[in-house]
């Protein structure tokens, strides 16, 4: 199996990586004491690691290529494991029951720490599903999505600070404000396409963050706003743990509502218009779809969910400042959508859980976790470019027609 040639190849790869990592990994200079630390054993580790990994890499790439060829020959697309299980009632119903049971008992069984992580993940589920409308369905690359999240969070924090607005009132107000901001951003960018759109949305996100950071009189600048109240339950006094559990269930409810609405939207007239817009703008206009309205509605609908997510985020952390809304946040949300599988609801949910829970549980690797995380993102995309659950395109088969042609 392992031929001499393969060994030679891997040997060259390992030499290359040893060369590549030499200055950064081996030499460590202390400029103050004027000493150099040589870490030769790191070089040995890199060489050995590259040697072994290159075998796996080649095997994996070869398997991926073979799979692609097979699909081309047989002409049918293999449906991934998870959607296949989902469509089978024998697995689907027990799976659903188990998930519901786990969701309900989770905060009572696991610690508050775990519950809090899961709340964060659920916020990302909601926000990710919102972005999925913009990126996955309408095909508009939005790199400034976090701006709407910030709008939601700040609208709750500021309204509460000035007027004592409660969480339950702030939730629709935050959503509405984000909706309006979505339209506001949508108008100027209607003519832009592809990466120009991406960069303008990125700019918009940064503008919002920088204004929040600098306009002290309005947003209290970098020091942020503290003591944001957690959501109340009919005026009951909740302990810290109880209120965590309460937010958890609020978030579950919100997530369920999001899933329901997004699902209905997907199959509605406007949802199909979004998909048509993604596939071909010109053809879509030729079919009589109003491009302006469709694009604006995608932006506005996407932004609404981010606004709601932002309100819950502010209520959960009880403290917000502009550093929570940097471009990295937009990037993470985009990763949720693409890693999970664009256009697929289940994919986005799994993507959010993986992306938020993974770095938390990778804490065992402590400082190496972001390194591992970056490498995993690359590997994931290389070996499964469609995401964990790729959205299944609905295909209409005209069987009757086929028979007529044949006979």
């Amino acid at each position, binding site marked *: 199996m392992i031929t001499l040639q393969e060994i030679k190849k891997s040997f060259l790869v390992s030499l*290359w*990586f040893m060369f*590549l*990592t030499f*200055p*950064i*990994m081996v*030499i*460590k*200079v202390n*400029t103050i004491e004027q000493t*150099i630390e040589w870490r030769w054993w*790191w070089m040995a580790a890199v060489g050995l690691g590259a040697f072994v990994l290159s075998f796996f890499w080649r095997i994996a*790439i070869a398997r*991926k290529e073979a799979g692609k060829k097979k699909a081309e020959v047989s002409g049918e697309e293999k449906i991934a494991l998870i959607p296949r299980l989902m469509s089978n009632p024998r697995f689907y119903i027990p799976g659903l029951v188990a998930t519901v049971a786990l969701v309900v008992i989770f905060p009572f069984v696991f610690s508050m720490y775990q519950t809090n992580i899961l709340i964060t993940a659920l916020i990302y589920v909601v926000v990710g599903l919102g972005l999925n409308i913009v*990126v996955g369905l309408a095909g508009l*690359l939005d790199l400034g999505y976090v701006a709407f999240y910030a709008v939601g969070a700040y609208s709750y924090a500021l309204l509460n600070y000035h007027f004592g607005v409660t969480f339950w009132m702030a939730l629709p107000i935050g959503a509405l404000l984000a909706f309006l901001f979505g339209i506001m951003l949508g108008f*100027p960018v209607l*003519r*832009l*396409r592809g*990466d*120009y759109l991406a*960069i*303008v949305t*990125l*700019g*918009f996100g*940064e*503008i919002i963050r*920088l*204004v929040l950071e*600098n306009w002290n009189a309005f947003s209290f600048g970098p020091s942020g706003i503290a003591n944001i109240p957690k959501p109340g339950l009919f005026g009951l006094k909740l302990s810290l743990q109880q209120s965590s559990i309460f937010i958890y269930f609020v978030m579950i409810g919100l997530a369920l509502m999001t899933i329901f609405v997004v699902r209905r939207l997907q199959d509605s007239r406007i949802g199909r218009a979004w998909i048509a817009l993604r596939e071909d*703008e*010109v*053809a879509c206009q*030729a079919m009589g779809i109003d491009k302006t309205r469709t694009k604006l509605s995608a932006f506005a609908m996407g932004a609404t969910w981010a606004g709601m997510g932002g309100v819950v985020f502010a209520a959960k952390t009880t403290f917000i400042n502009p550093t929570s809304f940097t*471009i990295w946040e937009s*990037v993470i949300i*985009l*990763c949720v959508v*693409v*890693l999970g599988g*664009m256009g697929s609801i289940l994919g986005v949910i799994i993507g959010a859980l993986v992306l938020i829970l993974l770095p938390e549980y990778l804490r065992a690797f402590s*400082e*190496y976790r*972001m*390194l591992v*995380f*970056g*490498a*995993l*993102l*690359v590997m*994931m*995309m*290389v070996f499964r*470019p*469609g*995401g964990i659950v790729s959205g299944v395109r609905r295909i209409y088969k005209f069987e009757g027609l086929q028979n007529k042609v044949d006979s």
Partner: protein
Amino acid sequence: MDYFLELFLGGLTRGSIYALIALGYTMVYGIIELINFAHGEIYMIGAFTGLIVISVLTMLGWNSIAIIVLAALIAMLYSAAYGFTIEKIAYKPLRGSQRLSALISAIGMSLFLQNYVLLAQTSNFLPYPNLVPTWDFLQPYEHIVRSTEMVIYIATALVMVLLTYLIKFTRMGKAMRAVAQDRDMSMLVGVDVNRVISFTFIIGSSIAALGGVLVASHIGQVNFYVGFIVGIKAFVAAVLGGIGSMPGAVLGSLVLGWTESFFTGYISSDYEDVFAFLFLVLILIFRPAGLLGRSDTDKV
């Protein structure tokens, strides 16, 4: 007037810095339509490699001009090697799949490289020695333009001239233009597309490394995160000029540099970036394909 000149030259410095990085962005984009998020990290690795070479050679007691030249060359060599490797690992297997997948792969790569330098070196800001010699004839203008800035202008101009020559008049340049226009067609006429793409990454990365060493000497410090912010700015500049167009990248960078510089100088430094982005949005509203970009119409 003096103040105006100072701001003008400050803007020119910024613009030249952005241009050195934006060129790499725009070259890669022109050929494989990928926003190479890891490009900023290549720049940072260039700066770090340069710092390491400088420190080692300083301890060996070399002459400072020899050190800076050698450091820049080694940094360029290593960054080119990194660019080449990254393309092979993270982008090549993704050719032909959705564009967003490649973007996420690039983001992952960026995260990986940042943390790689963070772990292997340090998370602190390291002081960066300025070894560019002070020129005597610039002495009277010291308060307006420093010799490091002069070196940055000259290097940028030189890079632009060389690149224009490379693209316009060499065989490889012709192949690059062909691949940018139509990859399948150029394959049919016998262009080795893989080689052209690798070459593009190598050139773009080494320019970024040159920028990294010069900028770090100018600013005087470096850490693992510097690439990200500058990378975003350079990307904005590339888009402003019309992504995929090289003169556009330079023009966009200069416009962005001057905008920032004049705005900071005359109005307020707090809202510098806000203004830069607003300016970008305004330009893109009136010229949706950037300053020098071609707007292609869809053929049905």
